[in-house]
């Protein structure tokens, strides 16, 4: 359930410094997401597609992720054309659709997909651990990076813990449906998962204290920001400034 299919690889984007990628992704995403122009949204999608190509992302997992992103967008396509209002109406059989609503839904679809592809190409090409250390180098509070790295580290463990509880419930003929018994069982399963994680966290904390934990994680691989990284950063910032300029104009 929890995996990082895009983090393995040796493309240009995989080798770029995570800290640089975080800033670039933030700048580009903000400039595209806040734009109200179709040109910028389209150009953003193009830039995002180029990044995905450069990152040599596997197409299967990427398509599946895009499908989840577009579920909420689908809701907008259902409601906005019917309720968007505005003067210009489009006739479709007996339905009167709002031109403004259709335009808004179209713009949002372009922007959402562009930003999502961009984030995948830039951020998912690093492991979460690398992103965490990148954030630390960008001077995020130390506690926040510890929270991020530890939460991520134990996701898989706790998922296994939950699955084991769920399996033992199945072995005892538990079958979920819409009734109070099902909800009580799920409530207890979740409660037990919380207790197990709490117990585990105390053991981990003791083990960490014993090994001299003082509130920081030492970093084994020191990432350096090279000339290529800075060039990449400059390029991304220029593109996002251009997008912002085009939006304001």
């Amino acid at each position, binding site marked *: 359930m929890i995996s990082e299919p895009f983090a393995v690889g040796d493309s240009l984007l995989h080798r770029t410094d995570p800290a640089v990628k975080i800033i670039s992704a933030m700048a580009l995403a903000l400039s595209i*997401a806040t734009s109200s122009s179709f040109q910028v949204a389209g150009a953003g999608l193009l830039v995002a597609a180029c990044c995905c190509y450069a990152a040599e992302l596997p197409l299967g997992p990427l398509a599946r992720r895009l499908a989840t992103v577009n579920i909420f967008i689908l809701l907008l396509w259902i409601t906005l054309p019917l309720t968007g*209002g505005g003067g210009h109406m489009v006739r479709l059989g007996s339905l009167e659709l709002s031109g403004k609503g259709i335009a808004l839904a179209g713009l*949002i679809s372009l922007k959402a997909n562009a930003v999502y592809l961009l984030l995948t190409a830039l951020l998912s090409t690093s492991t979460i651990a690398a992103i965490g250390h990148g954030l630390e180098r960008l001077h995020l509070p130390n506690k926040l990076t510890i929270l991020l790295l530890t939460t991520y580290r134990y*996701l898989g463990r706790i998922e296994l813990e939950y699955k084991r509880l769920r399996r033992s419930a199945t072995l005892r003929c538990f079958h979920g449906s819409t009734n109070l018994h099902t909800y009580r069982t*799920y409530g207890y399963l979740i409660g037990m998962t*919380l207790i197990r994680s*709490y117990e585990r*966290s105390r053991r981990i904390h003791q083990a960490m204290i014993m090994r001299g934990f003082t509130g920081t994680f030492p970093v084994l691989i020191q990432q350096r920001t090279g000339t290529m990284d800075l060039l990449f950063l400059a390029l991304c910032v220029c593109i996002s400034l251009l997008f912002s300029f085009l939006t304001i104009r």
Partner: protein
Amino acid sequence: MHISEGILSLPILAGGGAFAIIGTAIGLKHIDTDHIIETSLLSSAFFVASLVHIPLGPGSVHLVLNGLVGILLGWASVPAIATALFLQALLFGFGGLTVLGVNTVVMAGPAVAVYYLFGPMIRKEGRTRMIGAFCAGMVAILLSTCLLALALVGTDRSFLDTARLLLAAQIPLMLLEGVITMFVVSFLARVQPELLNFSSRVHP
């Protein structure tokens, strides 16, 4: 309950970001180094629990559990939820980076609210605790949906009907969250009551 990228306007995104940063800063102040690992693991447990699909009528829904997070973690739920949302954006593509602030406010704001509203009830015994837990689970989702609707309508008036639809669609989830939160709290109260006082022990 996430909002995707590219929908909200700049003022809403900036406002959400600012509130999220303030909340996260307050939350981090409430976590000391001795409890950061406990907070992290509870936060991964909530992440896993939010992926669980619960049968409801003909289909199934997945839980949010921000009410439960709020009851257990108090102010620490803001950085915990922000972290979980960041991970969800990177791992599954739910939500996103520019909307991280807004999503954090939408989910963590109600968590802190129910901590103050129903926390005292949950530390009592018997029926009061059960009612408090049910209300915490239900009200957290209600407030989250209202905040989400507000963010949508604040961006563009054409979202008014989408927001109404969203609010109506969340009513079954509100009841379900209330019931599940109630059972989780009753279980914790019997098996490990110290967890219910976790936040007051971390920052007395």
